[in-house]
């Protein structure tokens, strides 16, 4: 089994053919959906141009070998998540669709959370060779710069002052509403 995998890797199935097919098909589908390069929906030249663009996009993406590492790390786990949620859907068939709105919302956020977590994990585990995650390092650099220049402190101080003013001045609204209705009094 290992020899077979090695053979496939040797002939570029893992680091060329599979990513190429995935990128090409997804980008072509998006272009067809958005009609970006088409003059009309039946424009054959536009379709060919979309195919050429997807071809160039796929080849140029594969040139960055980090993408291959991300895909190898991310796709198997994400597929596992799909299988898990499919099983969940199968079990939910018994409930006759009477699922409360809160639970439905919880599932949506769960899906987004899990997928994003897997993606961030894939990026940090198999990031570029220069650092673990270049995006995070850049954001940290910007934050460090804001702190060093004193701008962050200025922002925080002004924000705090503003919040205090709102809290002090806007406080009577609540008490006014808690007073209740004005009742006529007898003298």
């Amino acid at each position, binding site marked *: 089994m290992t020899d077979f995998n090695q053979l496939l890797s*040797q*002939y*570029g199935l893992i*680091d*060329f*053919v599979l990513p190429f097919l995935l990128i090409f098909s*997804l980008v072509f589908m998006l272009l067809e959906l958005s009609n970006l*390069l088409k*003059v009309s929906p039946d424009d054959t*030249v*536009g379709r060919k*141009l*979309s195919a*050429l*663009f997807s071809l*160039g*996009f796929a*080849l*140029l*993406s594969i*040139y*960055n*070998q*980090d*993408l291959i590492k991300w895909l190898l790390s*991310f796709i198997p786990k*994400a597929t596992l*998540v*799909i299988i898990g*949620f*499919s099983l*969940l*859907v199968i079990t*939910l*068939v018994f409930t006759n*669709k009477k*699922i409360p*709105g*809160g*639970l*439905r*919302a919880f*599932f*949506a*956020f769960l*899906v987004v959370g899990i*997928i994003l977590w897997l*993606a961030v994990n894939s990026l940090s585990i198999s990031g*570029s060779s*220069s650092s673990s995650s*270049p*995006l995070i390092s*850049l*954001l940290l650099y*910007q934050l460090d710069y*804001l702190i060093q*220049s004193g*701008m962050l402190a*200025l922002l925080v101080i*002004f924000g705090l002052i503003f919040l205090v003013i709102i809290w002090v001045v806007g406080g009577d609204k609540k008490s006014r509403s808690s007073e209740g209705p004005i009742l006529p009094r007898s003298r």
Partner: protein
Amino acid sequence: MEPSSFIYNLFSQYGIFTFVAPFLLVFSLLYGSLRKIGLFGKDNPNKEKLYAIISIVIAFYYLYSISAVIFTSYFISFFFFEVLIIFFILMIIALMAGILEPYKGDDEFQKYKQSSHNIIVGILTLTVLFAFLYASSANFKEFGATAQNIMTEMMLALILSGLLPYLIIGGFIIAALYWVYKKEEPPKKKRKKKYFFIAPAEALYELPEFTKNRK
């Protein structure tokens, strides 16, 4: 994992990644865009040839800068990864949407859902910015380094010119004035807190429906 396959090495050797692929990408994008916007009129008989020549020339100029090509490679690869993440999310959400009954709220709920949809669209557009940040933060010469410094340079220019403190203070003053002079609104009904949780989720469930109904 280093690229060790025969096909990858062969393509690298013959300049498929650094010449053919970027040329195809830029040429098709420019040619298609020029055709679509119809810059040279609809009745011009030579317009297609002119579009082709302009696209080829610009594409070759682009290929002249190898750092720009490498930057593009990083930019679009990260962008594709983000598209793949969205694709997986939408796939699972569409799977769940088919089996669970949607929440039908009142008019206020619909407003919340619309706002949530707008926020989701805003977040989706940020993917391009993230891809740009990633590409600029990777270790490059020339183009990447320049792009990496754009935000820092902007911040530095604002600080050195003394504009930033004025901007911050001005922003707070405008906010305070707006708060003081804004019209008194009639008392609103008590907001339903559960809408903050359910409305964004319902907007998420609707996203695959939009793509499904698109022609």
